[in-house]
């Protein structure tokens, strides 16, 4: 007797497509960023409970909003670099170097606007050099950019002999107010930085360049086989990092109208932590600009929050580390990994 070739149970439920709503898509696309935002809310709630007097009043927010733009200018381009599958540890020196050019040009009597253009060009050129070195010589970006960071910083120190440059003349000028004043009660840098974040977000998510950054970081061989110039995309992310570092350098110099030879040094680890706290994974191919920006917000608030909560500065490091680990664990659980 032969068995009949009929499906066993034709009535069983077939897998169907879930409702394809806009909200669903938004949640899926912004999973990491929303997770980071949740971390931020929880952290702020804890701070507010621990120290209501400080956190229910404006000054603490204002003080964070002055330095946050500098961090944002660094974190956002770093998301590009990490997504393309590289890392850049040379941006603190690039930041210091570009700001140095800015200070020198202003000191020499050039228009501050021209000086800013000079700084941006310097940052992009340094970014190009770092990127070209890493990419064309196929060096490990972790080690090569660390070397570049030391080398550039050393160069600055040798030439300036560790002396700072005061630009107090810039205070109360048009340029000074444009980049370092108050606007609608907020530090004006914040608006510039938000504009930069929005621009970078557009570039990352809605632009051909961003699409290729994702493809190269995800699977470089596939991207190359599809005709994408992989090396050019990689170098371009380093150039963008240089641009962000230069902007950060100008903003940080304009806060106190003084350039220090150490400008940028303190940002290395906080900026890198912000990228990963924000939900960009380490393995490349995916990343989140919004998450990175919120990550920068979290990292900026940890320091002031802990001190304001009445704990000594000794606790800052401990909680910095704790938040980073918890955020990473949270993202690990929140994220599906396909490679």
């Amino acid at each position, binding site marked *: 007797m032969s068995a009949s070739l009929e499906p066993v149970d034709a009535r069983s439920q077939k897998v169907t497509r879930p409702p394809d709503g806009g909200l669903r898509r938004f949640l899926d696309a912004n999973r990491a960023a929303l997770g980071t935002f949740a971390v931020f809310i929880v952290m702020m709630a804890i701070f507010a409970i621990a120290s209501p007097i400080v956190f229910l009043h404006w000054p603490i927010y204002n003080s964070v909003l002055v330095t946050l733009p500098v961090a944002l200018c660094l974190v956002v381009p770093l998301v590009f670099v990490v997504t393309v599958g590289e890392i850049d540890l040379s941006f603190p020196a690039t930041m210091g170097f570009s700001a140095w050019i800015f200070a020198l040009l202003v000191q020499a009597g050039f228009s501050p606007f021209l000086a800013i253009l000079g700084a941006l060009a310097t940052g992009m050129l340094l970014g190009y050099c770092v990127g070209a070195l890493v990419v064309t010589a196929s060096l490990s970006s972790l080690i090569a950019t660390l070397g570049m960071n030391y080398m550039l910083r050393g160069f600055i120190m040798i030439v300036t002999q560790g002396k700072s440059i005061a630009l107090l003349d810039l205070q109360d000028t048009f340029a000074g107010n444009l980049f370092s004043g108050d606007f609608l009660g907020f530090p004006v840098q914040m608006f510039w930085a938000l504009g930069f974040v929005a621009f970078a977000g557009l570039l990352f998510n*809605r632009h051909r360049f961003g699409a290729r950054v994702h493809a190269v970081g995800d699977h470089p061989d596939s991207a190359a086989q599809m005709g994408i110039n992989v090396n050019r995309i990689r170098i371009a992310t380093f150039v963008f990092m240089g641009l962000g570092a230069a902007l950060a350098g100008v903003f940080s110099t304009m806060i106190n109208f003084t350039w220090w030879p150490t400008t940028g040094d303190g940002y290395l680890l906080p900026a890198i932590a912000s990228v990963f706290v924000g939900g960009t994974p380490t393995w490349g191919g995916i990343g989140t600009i919004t998450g990175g920006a919120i990550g920068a917000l979290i990292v900026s608030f940890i320091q002031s929050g802990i001190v304001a909560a009445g704990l000594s500065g000794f606790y800052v490091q401990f909680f910095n580390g704790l938040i980073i680990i918890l955020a990473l664990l949270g993202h690990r659980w929140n994220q599906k990994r396909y490679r």
Partner: protein
Amino acid sequence: MGERLIELRNIAKSYGRVFAVGGVNFHVDRGEVVGLIGDNGAGKSTLIKILAGAIRPTSGEILVRGKVEANWNAARSRDAGIETVFQDRALAVQQTIVRNIFMGREIAGWLGLLDQARERHEAERLMREIGFTSEIFTPDSIVGQLSGGERQGVALARAIYNKADLIVMDEPTTALSLTETEKVFRFVRTVRAGGRSVLFIGHNIHHVHDIAERFVVMDRGTVALQATKAEVGSAERLIGFMEKLAHPKGIDSLESAQ
């Protein structure tokens, strides 16, 4: 016979002193399905990587529609109307179906901003055309969630989107189920019916014999046979020829040698 679409003249590729491909002459005409067969290491994959511009030949000429190409690379190959479905499918698994279909070929408008609505619409249409049967996947689904056959579908969708004149398929039926293989065959026939050409690489001689109308057999970096279906006859004869290539003294000689 149709127009000569692409021609390789004396193409050789060596790694140091080892030749992967040693002086191959090879062509594909418009509207034909060519089957490329040969043992592992015969140089098939090297040849199609040269066609795709993924690797540069050590010597030889590549002609597209009768014209010699000077700067042959992956981008130029796609511009010339050659789409390759690689054996590993060349997909970025963390990206969406849309992003994979338009990888390197983004639909962008003003200032390079992506036209996402059009991309999604086109992707949906291509997925239907390829015969994506599962309803749970949208153009926004991540490729890493798909099965092998569905991933193959994404790679095929990418190949037809560009309206390429020649679609090169490197072992497209390996590791596919029966119905998925049938889908690939249907795909090849559709492409062929549209007056376009297919270069079909495969290990399953029956598959290749079924689908192709001309055969190129490679052996140790050279072309051992070029013949039409009529000249070859049955799949069994083709298999017999391949066996003779591998064991010139016959299979029996192996046993007697022991």
